[in-house]
């Protein structure tokens, strides 16, 4: 079982370390050709504009959609959650997303860095979890094909749609492996309904 972490920019090393701790074969993905043979792909936190531009330059959008169609599961954290969304509010002009998940994301919705925070959240089937929110987006609305997994202050901060997971906070910065385990054991390989 090999899971890729999109390594264009951002906190990809932390995701790889978390996956390796779980005994998963984790590889950095810098070019679309490296998507072959992956059962899952994590799009990490970072700057969504920078990651989106690099994805565009290196023609990642269609190959990721095709591999997802063929069974590659997806998880986006923070910037990655924005990149999975069907629609993005407050994106920069021309900023693309994969438009795979039936959710609307609002960029930088929780504010600037001075507003960044950590808090306990109740994550469905995982339990109480320390969420680290950094200039975080929130999920403005969740369509009928997606389900809500966690909320903070009445805002959706985690959602799932079949074999796709979106979290607007950063499990890779906590050392708490439970959400990575949830992705590996419950999300990977489960086809969209």
């Amino acid at each position, binding site marked *: 079982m090999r899971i890729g972490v999109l*390594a*264009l*920019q*951002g*906190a*990809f*090393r*932390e995701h790889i370390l978390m996956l390796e701790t779980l005994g998963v074969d984790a590889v950095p993905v*810098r070019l679309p050709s490296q998507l072959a043979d992956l059962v899952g792909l994590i799009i990490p*936190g*970072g*700057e969504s*504009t*920078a990651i989106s*531009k*690099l994805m565009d*330059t290196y023609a990642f959008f269609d190959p990721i959609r095709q591999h997802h169609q063929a069974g590659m599961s997806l998880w986006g954290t*923070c*910037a990655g959650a924005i990149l999975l969304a069907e629609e993005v509010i*407050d994106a*920069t002009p021309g900023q693309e997303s994969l438009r795979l998940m039936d959710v609307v994301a609002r*960029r*930088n919705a929780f504010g*600037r*860095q*001075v*507003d*960044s*925070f*950590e*808090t*306990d*959240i109740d994550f469905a089937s995982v339990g109480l979890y320390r969420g*680290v*929110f*950094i*200039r975080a987006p929130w999920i403005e609305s969740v369509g009928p094909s997606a389900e809500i997994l966690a909320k*903070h202050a009445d805002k959706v901060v985690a959602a799932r749609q079949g074999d796709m997971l979106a979290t607007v906070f*950063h499990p890779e*910065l906590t050392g708490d492996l439970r959400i990575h385990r949830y992705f590996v054991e419950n999300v990977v390989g489960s086809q969209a309904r």
Partner: protein
Amino acid sequence: MTENNMEIGTLRVKTGLAEMLKGGVIMDVVNAEQARIAEDAGAVAVMALERVPADIRAVGGVARMADPTIVEQIVGTVSIPVMAKCRIGHFVEAQILQSLGVDFIDESEVLTPADDKYHVDKEAFTVPFVCGAKDLGEALRRIAEGAAMVRTKGEPGTGNIIEAVRHMRTMTDGIAWLAGLRSEQVYDAAKQLQAPVELVRWVRENRKLPVVNFSAGGIATPADAALMMQLGCDGVFVGSGIFKSGDPAKRARAIVEATTHFADAELLAEVSRNLGEPMVGIDISQIPAAERMQERGW
């Protein structure tokens, strides 16, 4: 602490933003137009300044925090994080920058120091700080004061990579030296490094700095950026190198791509083509010792 134990300004939230910038390029900009060019090129953050370091060097005199109007215009223009510089030890400039909503403060040797003994007490702020360092001891002193990110200093405004390389190698050598020590040697190492023993012990055990380390001070080409990445930094600051060159937008994009694909020589060759004139640059030996910005910081 409130309901759900919600906290702002924690060390994890501060160092976390630095983690999100990794593998990226932070670009110096002096107005909203340059900030937009930087964002369009894929910068992960911009540094709002009144002048780029090459111009600070040319103008001379006392260099201070930028006019709040410039900072506000840039904050209002881009959606990526905005950084701004305060003078070493000038905690009031830092208070002002925090009130303007900047996302990171650079307590920077590029500006004229305000205190010849103390740096800003960075733990007292909600906003995170990045500080320059030439070696491991200086980096650990800044981290002990609360810095959430460090950058090797290089020599700002020169377009000359040699000092950036020297400082990065010095940092790496320092970490390798610590890692090779026996545990009873750690106290003496802390004395030599003039840094807290707890941090020294942490670095010895983990063989890396406890915060993200970017490279700065002299990066002018995609190859320069890739060189620093291959030497082990987490990302790069480009100051004068972009907007003092012939085609800033193209060069900015090329440096962003080179920072991501730093180990792919064919790709680096491709992005290095036809970038127009680079900034002219200065030989370090032509700068009198007293005018070298890297010597500022204690």
